[in-house]
């Protein structure tokens, strides 16, 4: 049975292995620095559909099937699928999972969804009540712009602190097996709100949540930051990363040497004009399922703390002057 650790954490007893991972991305991500790690790169961001929302579901559906195929499994072998996205009522996932006929848990954690899905997936495996669990998250630049900002063709400028929503879907399959990498432990984040109201500065809204979750994880397990080879946050971007490092320094923790941010890794800031970096559920999901999983498998990383970060807000809450709350979930993965 899993053990409750410290204040917010859980340590697993079973060997919860990540046996398969797949990442499908859009055209822009496919031109970025991580292109060699992705399983599929779209040539058409509409993915043959007639709307951005349908395209996102199609990407999710195709990538989940790809992940199942890569594991040598069939959809009926999967006990549960746990996925989420950014669209209203999680429609990106709902219609992506529809054709798979697998029992479905839809989750929402904004851009931290991949961490939430992997954490809950691990709990399902640890419970003994599930054999294979498929976890994933998706987002689409255009459907997110349409829902949260402006129509695509509107001639506006983006602020230097704005981030670029990643188009894609990242998925992993968890099961109990003696072949790593394994999910060893999780720390579920609290909602942290430091009063940020600028929807174009998500990194600043999420950094306190990331700092809190990482701090809590390290104290719950009594780890030093160098216990992990890499601490990878989700989509803080350049602004959020700077704030995270500073916030943790105030608490006497220095992660500047082993910290990376998926939002910084996924795009080339200068060449791709992405301002503060990448964001969206798919940002951490595809960076994990692509690059980080590959490095874990090839032992280039042995201990990874994966910390997807999310900004909890809706267009309505922002318009009503409500501040943007942040959340982050830690998933400790080791070989």
């Amino acid at each position, binding site marked *: 049975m899993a053990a409750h650790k410290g204040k917010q954490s859980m340590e697993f007893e079973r060997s919860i292995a990540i046996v398969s991972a797949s990442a499908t991305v859009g055209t822009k991500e496919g031109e970025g620095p991580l292109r060699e790690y992705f399983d599929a790169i779209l040539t058409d961001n509409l993915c043959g559909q007639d709307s951005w929302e349908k395209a996102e579901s199609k990407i999710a559906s195709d990538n989940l099937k790809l992940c199942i195929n890569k594991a040598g499994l069939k959809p009926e072998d999967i006990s549960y699928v746990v996925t989420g996205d950014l669209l209203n009522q999680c429609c990106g996932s709902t219609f992506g999972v529809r054709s798979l006929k697998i029992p479905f848990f839809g989750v929402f954690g904004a851009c931290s969804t991949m961490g939430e899905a992997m954490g809950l997936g691990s709990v399902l495996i640890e419970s003994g009540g599930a054999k294979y669990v498929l976890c994933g998250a998706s987002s689409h630049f255009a459907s997110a712009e349409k829902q949260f900002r402006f129509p695509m063709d509107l001639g506006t400028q983006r602020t230097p602190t704005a981030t670029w929503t990643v188009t894609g879907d990242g998925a992993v399959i968890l099961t109990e097996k003696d072949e790593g990498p394994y999910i060893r432990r999780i720390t579920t984040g609290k909602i942290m709100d430091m009063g940020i109201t600028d929807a174009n500065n998500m990194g600043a809204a999420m950094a306190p949540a990331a700092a809190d979750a990482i701090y809590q994880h390290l104290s719950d397990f009594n780890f030093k930051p160098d216990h992990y080879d890499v601490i990878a946050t989700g989509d803080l971007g350049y*602004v959020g990363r700077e704030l995270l490092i500073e916030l943790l320094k105030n608490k006497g923790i220095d992660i500047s040497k082993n910290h990376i941010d998926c939002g910084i890794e996924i795009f080339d800031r200068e060449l791709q004009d992405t301002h503060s970096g990448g964001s969206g559920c798919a940002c951490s999901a595809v960076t994990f399922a692509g690059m980080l999983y590959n490095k874990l498998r090839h032992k280039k990383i042995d201990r990874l703390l994966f910390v997807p970060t999310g900004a909890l807000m809706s267009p309505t809450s922002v318009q009503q002057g409500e501040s943007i709350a942040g959340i982050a979930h830690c998933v400790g993965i080791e070989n």
Partner: protein
Amino acid sequence: MPKDITKKQYSNMVKKASPDSPIITNCLKAFFVGGIICTIGQLITNCCRIFGLSIEQSGNFTSIILVIAASVLTGLGLYSKLGKFAGAGSIVPITGFSNSVTAPAIEFKKEGFILGLGAKIFIVAGPVILYGVLTSIAVGIVYYILS
């Protein structure tokens, strides 16, 4: 454990970490692109005058041509690129108004012609129209009283 950072302290940290928009470059770009659009407008007006239209007719004709041109450029995905470069320079002229109507029309057409396109076409331009009309009524009343 050290004391937690207050919202105010954090707000200062955020201000320090967040780069500002390059305001001078943005202003220069807006000035030149806005100027070019207006010069094109003037050119069209002058051409209309050459063909013998009155000043009022020429003005109307210029507006029509600029609105159609911006609408077509929006449809081709070019106006958003111009907007990214020019900022207010391409938003303030009448072409920006055209873009702000065409862009939602394209985006929300997927939700149908009534509840999609019809309901959301003025999602960006709506406030400009509403408050523009209200302001002109107010100015009209003031003008009436003063004259």
